[in-house]
């Protein structure tokens, strides 16, 4: 029998179809493992029908889809699978929120949000796929969203 590289989890959340190479950034955005003590496994460049992908598995923790939505900035095709007793009981596509607060820094060095003012970075959604966002303050659109993740 061919041994699976990634073993199924009994309970928890599987984030599938992450843009290849972005799994670590996804963990960073979700503040995992800082935000939980769950066992986390990461697979990168996994072959699939639609080409390569990354996968993240978080055991014994069901992530709130709204919490996970923010990863769609860098992984717009990702799916969130909630697993109970080895069965997928819920499956969602990530959905980019209309406002993204405190996740991405503005690419404009002279934007007021990059100075020592008491505000978090704030972006408004321009386009869902491909993701395009613009700074609420200076109205610039960053080219390199993945590089701007805080």
């Amino acid at each position: 029998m061919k041994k699976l590289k990634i073993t199924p989890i009994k309970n928890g959340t599987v984030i599938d179809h992450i843009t290849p190479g972005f799994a670590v950034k996804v963990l960073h955005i979700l503040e995992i493992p800082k935000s939980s003590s769950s066992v986390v496994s990461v697979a990168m460049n996994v072959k699939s029908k639609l080409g390569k992908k990354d996968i993240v598995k978080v055991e014994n923790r069901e992530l709130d889809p709204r919490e996970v939505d923010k990863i769609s900035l860098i992984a717009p095709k990702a799916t969130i699978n909630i697993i109970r007793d080895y069965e997928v009981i819920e499956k969602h596509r990530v959905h980019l929120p209309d406002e993204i607060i405190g996740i991405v820094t503005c690419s404009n060095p002279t934007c007021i949000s990059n100075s020592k003012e008491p505000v978090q970075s704030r972006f408004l959604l321009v386009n869902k796929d491909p993701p395009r966002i613009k700074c609420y303050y200076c109205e610039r659109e960053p080219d390199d969203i993945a590089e701007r993740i805080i």
Partner: protein
Amino acid sequence: MKMSFTNRDIISIKDFSKQEITYILNYAKKMVPYAKGEKNASLMKNKILSSLFYEPSTRTRLSFESAMHRLGGRVIGFADPTATSQKKGESLADSIRMADSYSDVIVIRHPQEGAARLAAEFAEVPVLNGGDGAGQHPTQCLLDLFTILTERKNIKGNNVVLLGDLRYGRTVHSLAYALALFGADLTFVSPDTLRMPKEVIAECKDLGVEPSSTSNLDKAMKDADVLYVTRIQRERFPDAEEYNKVVGTYKVDLELLKLAKKNLIIMHPLPRVVEIDPAIDVTPYALYFKQAFNGVPVRMALLSLILGEALP
């Protein structure tokens, strides 16, 4: 159509619909005799404007202050931030909280993009953006539209050539968007290194206008109805070498005007340095001083509308 502007911030021209802009421009026409001192109205009596200028300004600051005085209001503020607590390290947010408690309306100019939007978050009173770095300058945009509208009766149907520093020049970013909103044809003329940012071009296209871009002014002049000239701004360049490469690339002079349509109008947000020959000033083409005056009725209109004290 009656619209409500009471307590609204004026941060970016994009915060306003075409109908709202048209309303403001038509209302500004009513303000012209008041701006000239031919009529009097004390709409701003007992109102105080905070005029917070963190960057140098002549026209924006003086015309805002003139607008407030003409309407019977008073002005506090500064034109040099080195004389304020910013020098001691105070945040903009805290300075705005102070101005908010001392006045009924705030106008701010600041070298950093997004500063006015931030100010509006921390102020209860309405905030007007008097220019934020290379970002937005909505009141300049409105007075530019007002100037074209009063001179040409319509904005649509004009081929407007925007010339000069289209990369760092904040007035041209707001203006290109607004002209596209009104359906004007747009031609962008700049040195290659100072081209219009792609976001602005994309916005024009989203509004159904396909701007053409060139570095050849002579070619663009022949079809121009409005020539909007901007200064290449030394203060926006990251280094002097880049500035020296492009300064003086274009000069509007009598020779160039031989190519122009007879009814061309030349506008400039001012200050000009070398880009318009002073010999142009006495020709019927020159509209930039009248344009600068138009800042007063337009700003009177805005102050009056957002403070809910409109002319009958």
